[in-house]
C-alpha cells in the first residue's frame, strides 16, 4: 500500500515557466488537498477536492490550478512560476470518516529563480 505519492521531490523552475506537481493516492479517499509550507510557517491550504470532478479554492489559491478527473489523482498546476511560489508543497488525502487521519505525501521542494 503506497499511500500518497508525490512527484517530483525536488524541482528548480525559472520565472515564467510552468509545471505540474503530481499526486496520487491508492486508498480510495474522496478528499484530497494541496498545501504549501513556507519557511517558519505552518501549512496553508491551496486547493482541495471532495471527489472526482469537484475542486475548490483554499486559503492561498492564486497562481495555481487543479483538476480531479479520477479519485486517485489530484495534480497541481503552476502556470507562470514566480519567486513567491518557492515553497514545499504537500498533497494529502482523507476519508472524513471517524478517525479522520490525513495522509500526506513526502512533499515537493520547489525553487523558482
Amino acid at each position, binding site marked *: 500500500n503506497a499511500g500518497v505519492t508525490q512527484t517530483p521531490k525536488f524541482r528548480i523552475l525559472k520565472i515564467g515557466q510552468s509545471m505540474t506537481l503530481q499526486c496520487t493516492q491508492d486508498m480510495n479517499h474522496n478528499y484530497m488537498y494541496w498545501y504549501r509550507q513556507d519557511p517558519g510557517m*505552518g501549512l496553508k491550504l491551496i486547493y482541495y477536492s471532495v471527489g472526482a470532478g469537484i475542486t475548490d479554492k483554499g486559503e492561498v489559491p492564486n497562481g495555481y490550478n487543479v483538476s480531479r478527473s479520477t479519485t486517485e489523482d489530484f495534480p497541481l498546476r503552476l502556470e507562470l512560476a514566480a519567486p513567491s511560489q518557492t515553497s514545499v508543497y504537500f498533497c494529502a488525502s482523507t476519508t472524513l470518516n471517524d478517525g479522520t487521519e490525513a495522509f500526506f505525501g513526502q*512533499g515537493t521542494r520547489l525553487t523558482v529563480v
Partner: protein
Amino acid sequence: AQTVTQSQPEMSVQEAETVTLSCTYDTSENNYYLFWYKQPPSRQMILVIRQEAYKQQNATENRFSVNFQKAAKSFSLKISDSQLGDTAMYFCAFMKHKGAGGSQGNLIFGKGTKLSVKP
C-alpha cells in the same frame, strides 16, 4: 475563522526528560478535532496524536499525551522519556468535525515548534 497559535518557536530537552509543547486555538465550533503532527528532517508529516473535542478524556499514545482544555481552547503535547528520534518540528492542527457546516476536512496549522532532543 479558526486560528491555531503555537507560542514556542523552539524548545530543547535532554534525552529521557519530559517536555511540553503549547498550542492554543480559536473557534466558534463545538465539534472538532485537534492533532499534533511531527515533521522530522525527512519532511514527512507524521500524525502523533489526535483528540476529538467531544471526548473529555485526554488522548495518549505511548510516550505522547495531551492536555486538552476545551473551555480555555488549549491543547498541549507532553512527550515523556524524550528520545533523540523525537527531534523534529511539531505542528498543532485543527479540523472541523465532518458534521459541521462547511467542513471539508482541511487542517488549519500553527506555525510549529522546533524541538531538539539533546544527548
